């Protein structure tokens, strides 16, 4: 058994799911540290299945999956669950926030499940909410967000309006939907994961909100070395990432994509992740 040649943060090779390959067939993906990659595909192309296989929720029938040099495909279910809890962050398309908990408590919940004490979890949750610039809503429950019932029903667990909604707490210009999206990202990042999987994380947001949230996400991913994989069918969302991997009928297709908001996001000297083990190339090449 050998490690991937260039040792990316996440390296998947030859994933087949299910056994007949009807959903995913020989899919490969390599993502480097601090890199933001978009998996772009139409509905039914296998994005959800790929996210499920990469995040360890489902077991691929064939193929290998390495994360930070660890063979995830060889771990027992218990160890895989523990690894996911500690090293993976997930943002689901239909994010659910429990209406009984404030955003700070909901953000710190993954830490509590991982065994972190209440005080430490609260501190780190507040830190991450601050990084996503929604610290003003930390003490609010989702139904208490101003205008939440009108604008972000799909995000919260209960869309009933608050009895006495406080106003003037959130920073000006941040809508509740964007607040909940950022809170979902903060909840996924609170463990400081190695890899963040985000399924349509900006759906329902305006272009301006998406730009702002993506800027924050890329910034924190870069500073913490987290590999971010965004699964989307929206081309505009995908072009905000550094690299695009097209997923067509269960197969990945490489296509170099010029990034409109190109900024040097990879730490200097970091090798480009490729599946073939070739020399790192300055051009960002998708597998």
């Amino acid at each position, binding site marked *: 058994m050998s490690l991937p040649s260039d040792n990316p943060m996440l390296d998947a090779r030859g994933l087949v799911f299910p056994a007949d390959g009807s959903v995913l067939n020989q899919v490969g993906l390599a993502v480097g540290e601090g890199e933001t990659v978009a998996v772009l595909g139409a509905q039914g192309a296998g994005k959800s299945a790929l996210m499920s296989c990469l995040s360890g929720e489902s077991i691929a029938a064939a193929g290998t999956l390495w994360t930070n040099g660890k063979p995830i495909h060889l771990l027992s279910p218990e*160890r895989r669950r523990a690894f996911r809890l500690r090293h993976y962050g997930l943002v689901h398309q*239909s994010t659910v926030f429990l209406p*009984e908990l404030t955003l700070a408590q*909901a953000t710190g919940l993954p830490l509590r499940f991982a065994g972190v004490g209440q005080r430490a979890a609260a501190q780190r949750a507040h830190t991450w909410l601050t990084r996503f610039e929604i610290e003003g809503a930390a003490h609010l*429950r989702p139904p208490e967000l101003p205008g939440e019932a009108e604008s972000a029903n799909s995000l919260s667990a209960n869309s009933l309006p608050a009895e006495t909604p406080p106003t003037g707490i959130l920073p000006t210009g941040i809508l509740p939907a964007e607040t909940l999206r950022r809170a979902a990202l903060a909840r996924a990042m609170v463990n400081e994961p190695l890899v963040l999987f985000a399924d349509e994380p900006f759906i329902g947001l305006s272009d301006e909100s998406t730009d702002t949230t993506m800027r924050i996400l890329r910034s924190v991913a870069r500073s913490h070395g987290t590999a971010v994989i965004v699964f989307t069918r929206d081309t505009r969302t995908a072009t905000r990432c550094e690299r695009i991997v097209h997923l067509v009928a269960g197969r990945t297709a490489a296509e170099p994509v010029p990034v409109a908001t190109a900024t040097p996001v990879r730490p200097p000297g970091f090798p480009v992740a490729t599946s073939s083990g070739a020399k790192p190339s300055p051009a960002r090449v998708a597998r």
Partner: protein
Amino acid sequence: MNTNGTLVAADGYFEPRETAWFRTRLALRLAVPVERGARVAALKLAASAALAAPPVTIVLIAPMATLTLGSVTGLLAAGLPGFAATAWTAAGLRESRLLATRGLRQAGAEQRTAWLIGAARLCLFAGIGALAGSALVALTHATLGAAVPDYSPLHRMFAANALTWLPAITVTTTLAAVGALLASSPLWEQIDWSRFARGLNVRALNARTLHVRTLNVRTARLDMPRFKTPLFRAMRRSRPPH
């Protein structure tokens, strides 16, 4: 990662340890609804369970000799509105239960933990309601037993020892919680109820009835030659030749 939030050896990541009583406290925290709609639904469930509990408790407490078919049928009939109301209100809480489970799963809880915490509200309110209903019967059984006439089955049912009421109350509470869980189970969504709705379609019923009648007539005509009666033979003989 230890309880102070500091990182420990990498192998420690494979063995996460939750803090003591964290799941229990979280379940209790999520079991108490904070919103008006959820609070009303939970209180309806508790009231329904309280309505359904007394007949069940009486059936459990009654001596075997007093449990005739008529008395059991009567008690179950008395509890029928409560059973229906409990099932109805518990089914209404199915969506919130599933959402709570999904939210906990997204927050990193394992499936079993999320299921248990998500079901806490149902169990809590159904249990509280059943406990209240059973306890009310237990506390007033002496008065009720004296009030009913001697020939009534309830008179002998209420003569049970006070100590035997405790297991009856416990079993009733457990049954209410389990019943609420069953009624709110997502398995019911997999049943095609439209099949039963189609059975109640008046036009379909009419057509089916007509079809049956037609078949019956045809069958009768076809069956006629089987009767080799003298009258039948006489009719055949009298039929004009083709």
